[in-house]
């Protein structure tokens, strides 16, 4: 009777035993890398309903972040500004611009503008802006150079590992209260050391960023 399997098939199990683990490992590796927030979330740059430019308003015009995100220092949410904030200027500046039609309609009919959220933590993670700002963490540490972005994009992974990296050693990321919204500020060029700053309202040793699970998963 003829052989159904040729001779080389004897080595097939061995080959499978060698290749399959490799495949599994590389699949796992691929998921770990391309599936991590660093890869999936950083650079997320959705199209917004109004072509609002931080580069123009915060960068070239030099507006302070808190003119618009005015609850950031006292509340958990930085809050995207209400339409009335835009109308403070745009009632007179470019009152006919087609790009601002959505804003005028919102102001006139009292309906909200539907911005697309860029930075988003899952509901099971707690985050509070005011605590971080009062500790002296600047916007740019977490949001990057917003003042150079015509359209807001996510600059940092916002993953748990990223949060903890700073929580374990926050000193290098602290700045004087006056520089919180200064996008260009840099601790090395400013030659600033938080633990030696006598003017700090809250001393570095008094800061306790949580590393225990219930600090962020409440």
């Amino acid at each position, binding site marked *: 009777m003829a052989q159904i399997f040729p001779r080389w098939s004897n080595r097939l199990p061995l080959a499978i035993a060698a290749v399959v683990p490799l495949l599994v490992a590389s699949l796992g590796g691929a998921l770990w890398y391309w599936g991590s927030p660093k890869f*999936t*979330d950083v650079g997320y740059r959705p199209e917004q309903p109004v072509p609002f430019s931080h580069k123009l308003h915060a960068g070239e015009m030099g507006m302070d972040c808190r003119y618009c995100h005015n609850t950031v220092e006292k509340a958990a*949410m930085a809050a995207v500004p209400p339409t009335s904030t835009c109308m403070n200027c745009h009632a007179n500046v470019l009152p006919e611009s087609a790009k601002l039609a959505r804003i005028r309609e919102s102001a006139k009919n009292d309906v909200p503008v*539907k911005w697309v959220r860029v930075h988003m933590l899952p509901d099971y993670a707690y985050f509070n802006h005011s605590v971080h700002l009062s500790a002296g963490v600047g916007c740019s540490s977490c949001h990057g150079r917003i003042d150079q972005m015509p359209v807001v994009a996510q600059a940092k992974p916002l993953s748990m590992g990223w949060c903890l990296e700073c929580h374990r050693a926050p000193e290098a990321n602290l700045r004087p209260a006056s520089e919180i919204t200064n996008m260009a500020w840099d601790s090395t060029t400013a030659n600033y050391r938080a633990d030696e700053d006598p003017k700090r309202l809250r001393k570095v040793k008094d800061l306790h960023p949580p590393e225990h699970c219930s600090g962020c998963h409440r």
Partner: protein
Amino acid sequence: MTKGSVKNGQPQWRSLSSRTNPDQGSVREFPEGAENLELDGVSRRQFLAIMGASTALAGGLTGCVRKEVEHILPYSRRPEDQADGEARFFATNLYVGGVALGLLVKSQDGRPSKVEGNKEHPSSGGGTNVFAQATVLDLYDPDRSRTALKAGAESTLEEALAAVDAALVGHKDAGQGLAIVIDSKPSPSNRALLASIAKRYAAAQIYTHDNADQANTREGMALVGVASSHPVYDLSVADVVVSLDADFMGTGVDAVRLTRQFAGRRKPEAAKAGEINRLYAIEPAFTVTGATADNRLQVAASQVGTFARLLASKLAASGVTLPAGAEALGGAALQADETLTKWADAVAKDLAGKRGKAVIIVGERQPAWVHGLAHRGPTRSPRIWLPSVASRSSSSASASPPGCMALPTS
């Protein structure tokens, strides 16, 4: 395992029936063949395998993709003092039975989410009751009227106001044929408004609608000469409290404040200082108040009044002067059984020694004359039933029995 097993030579049993009849074995917990049960061609094992795989995929892979798109919809005009995502608290009142309960309502981005007591309001002190807790659901009730109605159909507030205007302008006279139905809120501004309407339209009828109206209590007060008022008790100075069918710690009006005051005199420290209070409950039904009472007597509802009359006569016998006419309240000749008489004796003895430090509370369910008796009896001259309290500002306070402040109800 269907038969009783054997361990250490002893037969083990799992139920009384298997003990009395060991050969029968224990009753099967699951029906025969349950482990092979097939539904729609999928066996239990297959089902678990599929579920397991889909759960693993759902949990393992969705964590690795960008979250779904979410939107931020800011106000077009943000209210002052509002910070998105931060709770705001509004102070308000809930009226039940003419008594206001001070509340704080938590509101999150314009949505009321929780009702709690207002610590700074004397009627609450931070506490609430079931009615207050339930009101938050009222706010989301789809049947709740959101706009003015006209003959059952939706209308607008402007239209309603215009209609009222037109109707009132038509009533240049004293308001004949004009009737106003209003919920009862004993607030001073409400009263002032109603008074000014009554003055301008003398012939108009004003009706109040209240499903927790304290009509008997009010009438009882009127019997002792305090019109349109309800009593406000101060239990913090009461050594003895007698509840006549009054669930003042449960469903009664002002229960939040009264419970707090009552409990304040039940602390271990109070016991040490000999200041602990005593509560007698004479009631026809089980209530929270009855359950808390040191001594509770269950009687028919009709016997509560009889007890009040017995008590009045016992007090009179022990030297307390009742004003003329007190005995006549209640009508027919007094007939009481032995238990009631024994109880009245004991309570009267306790009360007689507590001049100015005792309170008798009558429940709204009891007829007006029982209320009248409780206020009328010895409360007027020898101040023994109700403790005296400095009368707070109130138009008719001077005429109210000492110890209970009379507040006008309408």
